[in-house]
């Protein structure tokens, strides 16, 4: 400001007082912690004081010259900066003092304008002319500031680096074998993945803009808002920040797909995109917390403008994430999609509170609602997929018996599938609870009196038992395809054993319960016993002491037994018991039974047996029995020769 105190006049004292007051006002205005209203009041007061000075000095005819001088001075300064190609807040090139000088000059112009304006009611031509010039300079300065903020925002942008966020590359991996046709016990990677991306619980704020320029941005914001150039400020700010977020989505490799693209996409690519999406969701919500912080820092003093700008920055990018999610939820309900659907469901559910907090203001209502809607869609889709999985098991039809009576791929698939599902216990329970509440026919427990732990009574546990029951009845159906009733037992023994084993040695045990395991152990043991009985009782009955005179010779009995044994051997070497322990157990108990009977028969009848009928020694038999259930049919050549 010009040095008003140098003007000598009868009202010198008054002018001094005004100048002093103005000084105080300015000093107060320099305080950074002022709130909006107070700042406004001070700026108005400043204007009024300037006006008073003008009025006082105008009466002497010198005031406007004074003002004109000041304007000219300010104009020169602004113009000189304008011609300077370097930006004021370019930390490498510019002098920080110059920047504050620039803002100070704007302050002065603003004060002059305030003064001139409050006179304008009865103002004359000269005063209007000055006001015009002042406004014009101000506009020039504002236009310059608009460029400056964009420059600062772009130049000092920092790439978001999430804390504790696993940046494990998500390559094109197909980790879970998702077809009914070939399934092995693979999916431990699911567990790895879920353990590695532990949730980031604490609030983490990253500086998206270098902290040392925040005060500059803040002071530019204050100046621009102070002279009602807030719209320009917000536009510049929003557009740069919005682009930064969109760019970050590119960094996260989130691609833009139309709904149609997603619905037509092959599962392997979709799987990959979903993984990227889940990761991006997690990170973007963290990112937005930092973005919100940035908005608060710069726009925090300006009321509703702050949330409005924040919403505008985030809206477009979130729309992409939302639409992808909706498209996935719209897809068909193949069982293999369930894990990815639940991943998506969980990432939205886990972040929902944060989203609600970020967009708590009215401006963010639509975004908030959209995410709640997405959670619902994903949940519905996940539930439908899970239920369809059950139906698919029931509906799975075989036309030919599964060769060798081994473990059916369906059994492996189902057991591995539900084993993996235990990782999603909480979400699945929530989803199924909704379903069972809405459904008048909730899942009927196939067996009652499960263990005492409450977890075995949770929704998921009930559904699991119902699924295994469905599987069992399907296996029963499949077993009927074997023409050989004995092989039915082997098949069911194998499959039940697999199920029990699977449950026993993983988390499934907690859900399905020990009671279930016991029952299933009993079941497969029963089938083992039935097998022995059905196969060997008739064979061994040939060795019984038969006193009937017509058919009495022990040699004949031995011959009969040998033929029967060789027949069994021919059949059952082709059968398969994949589990070595189970196979061994069955071989041992068979051995004990058969060899014992054979030996004792030989011992009893050693005298009456013609040696030529004895083709196999007990030891031979023992070895032959070890050939059973290995899945490769063999023939005892000796029987044909002799």
């Amino acid at each position, binding site marked *: 400001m010009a040095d008003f105190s140098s003007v000598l006049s009868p009202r010198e004292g008054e002018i001094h007082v005004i100048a002093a007051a103005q000084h105080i006002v300015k000093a107060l205005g320099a305080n950074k912690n002022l709130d909006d209203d107070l700042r406004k009041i001070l700026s108005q007061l400043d204007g009024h004081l300037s006006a008073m000075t003008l009025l006082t000095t105008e009466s002497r005819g010198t005031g406007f010259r004074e003002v004109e001088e000041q304007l000219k001075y300010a104009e020169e300064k602004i113009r000189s900066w304008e011609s300077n190609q370097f930006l004021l807040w370019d930390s490498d090139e510019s002098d920080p003092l110059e920047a504050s000088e620039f803002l100070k000059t704007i302050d002065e112009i603003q004060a002059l304008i305030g003064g001139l304006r409050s006179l304008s009611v009865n103002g004359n031509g000269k005063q209007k002319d000055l006001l015009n010039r002042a406004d014009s300079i101000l506009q020039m300065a504002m236009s310059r500031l608009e460029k400056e903020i964009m420059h600062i925002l772009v130049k000092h942008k920092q790439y978001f680096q999430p804390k504790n966020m696993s940046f494990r590359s998500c390559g094109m991996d197909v980790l879970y074998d998702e077809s009914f046709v070939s399934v092995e016990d693979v999916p431990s990677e699911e567990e790895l993945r879920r353990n590695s991306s532990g949730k980031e619980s604490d609030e983490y704020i990253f500086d998206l803009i270098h902290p040392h320029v925040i005060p500059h941005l803040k002071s530019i914001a204050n100046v621009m808002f102070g002279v009602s150039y807030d719209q320009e400020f917000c536009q510049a700010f929003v557009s740069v920040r919005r682009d930064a977020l969109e760019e970050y989505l590119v960094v996260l490799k989130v691609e833009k*797909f139309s709904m149609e693209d997603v619905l037509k996409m092959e599962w392997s690519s979709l799987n990959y995109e979903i993984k990227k999406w889940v990761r991006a969701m997690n990170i973007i919500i963290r990112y937005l917390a930092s973005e919100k912080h940035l908005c608060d820092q710069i726009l925090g003093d300006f009321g509703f403008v702050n949330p409005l700008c924040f919403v505008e920055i985030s809206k477009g990018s979130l729309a992409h994430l939302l639409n992808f999610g909706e498209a996935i939820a*719209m897809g068909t309900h193949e069982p293999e999609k369930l894990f990815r659907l639940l991943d998506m469901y969980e990432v939205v559910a886990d972040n929902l509170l944060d989203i609600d907090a970020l967009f708590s203001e009215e401006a963010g209502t639509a975004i908030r609602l959209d995410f709640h809607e997405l959670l619902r869609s994903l949940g519905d889709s996940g539930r439908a997929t899970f239920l369809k999985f059950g139906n698919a098991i029931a509906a799975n039809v075989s036309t030919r018996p599964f060769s060798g009576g081994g473990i059916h791929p369906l059994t492996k698939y189902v057991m591995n599938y539900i084993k993996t599902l235990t990782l999603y216990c909480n979400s699945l329970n929530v989803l199924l609870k909704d379903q069972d509440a809405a459904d008048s026919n909730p899942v009927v427990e196939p067996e009652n009196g499960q263990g005492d732990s409450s977890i075995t009574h949770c929704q998921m546990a009930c559904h699991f038992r119902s699924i295994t029951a469905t599987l069992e009845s399907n296996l029963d159906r499949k077993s009927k395809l074997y023409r050989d009733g004995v092989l039915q037992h082997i098949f069911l023994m194998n499959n039940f054993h697999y199920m029990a084993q699977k449950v026993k040695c993983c988390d499934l045990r907690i859900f399905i319960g020990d009671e279930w395991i016991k029952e299933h152990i009993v079941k497969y043991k029963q089938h083992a016993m039935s097998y022995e009985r059905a196969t060997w009782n008739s064979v061994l009955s040939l060795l019984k002491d038969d006193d009937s005179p017509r058919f009495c010779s022990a040699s004949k009995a031995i011959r009969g037994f040998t033929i029967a044994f060789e027949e069994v051997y021919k059949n059952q070497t082709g059968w398969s018991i994949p589990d070595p322990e189970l196979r061994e157990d069955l071989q041992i108990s068979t051995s004990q039974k058969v060899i014992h009977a054979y030996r004792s028969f030989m011992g009893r009848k050693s005298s009456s047996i013609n040696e030529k009928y004895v083709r196999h020694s007990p030891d031979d038999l023992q070895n032959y029995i070890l050939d059973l259930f290995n899945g490769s049919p063999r023939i005892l050549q000796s029987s044909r020769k002799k």
Partner: protein
Amino acid sequence: MPATDNQGSFLNRISIRRNQVVSMDGNHEQELEDLELFQKHVADRFADLLSQSEDTLGDGLLSISWLRKLLDVFLCCEAEYKAILLLGRDPSQISKPPLDKLVPEFHDRVVKALDVCNAVSHAVETVRHYQKLAEIAVTALEQRPIGDGQVRRAKKALNSLMILLEEKEGSNHKLTERAWSFGRRSANATTSSSKDRATSASQFRSLSWSMSRGWSAAKQIQAMSSNLVAPRGGESSSPALPVYIMSTITVFVMWALVAAIPCQERNGLLTHLPVPKQLGWAHSIIALQEKIAEEWKRKKEKNRLAGLLEETQRIEKLGVSLIEFADSFQFPPDADRLEEVAVQVAELGETCKKMDEGLMPLQQQIREVFHRIVRSRTEVLDLLDQGGKVTAPIM
């Protein structure tokens, strides 16, 4: 049923019998009645839209309020359509001719409509940007006394607005340009190679796509309408007809949105939708379609397609005139001229207010349409799922 000639009603009678045999229920009379009512409602609703389109006070054809009404009509028709399609119908009927073909076709169409909804919703943001620039002009020019500063401020905003409005179809080079200017500027300080700049520029360009690369609203509309064939003969009664009606409405509504809001790639947008003229329920739709097409062609000649939305057109017109004022402005201003301008500024302010109040609800309504379409599709598919036995893989 409107516009039925002798042959039509004869065929109807045949189809009534046939359907009675097929469905074995007595509901068929009811169904025909519902269908007739549906056609009447569709006709009435679009007749309403047609009469509102005559409004000259700013809420006429392709204004925000008209579009919102159009979306309301869509939602009403959709609800009624779904009731007709699903209520009291044996789900297995949907998997039999003619629905077994028509319903999946309809679903293909609505998925495309979803993408159109998203593209338009995104483009509403562009229109909001027009609004914001216009608002700056209003703020500046409302100030009194008005001087060079205010006028320059307004002109700056309006010039940006005009550049946006002039943008050629499909291109959105604003971002690219900015990326370049920053690249240039920071080249002083940083040592980014020209190759870096080129990649960053192309990256920016890809950002400006709202949809996937190569997605085109015009092609989408084309694809939606390509297999739209009016049911004939026996099929012209339930249940092929409601599917056809709803398809036509969907195509029309999406087409109107694309015409009004400058979304991604509108080059070659159809100006004629294949709706047969003789159908009673379609009269108003055809009339509206012709009016919009007329407007489209008129604007296309002037290469100013961005502003088909009534409010945008108004902003554009006022903007041009205010730029003229700004160009010829000299201080001190002429009082008469200032009064003229004040009227225009007031109108511009009024339009901005309308946009401020209407665009967000419009965007939300588009989202509502989106969700509705998704849900209806899911409902029908679920029904089919339960009805038809799941064909499981044979092992």
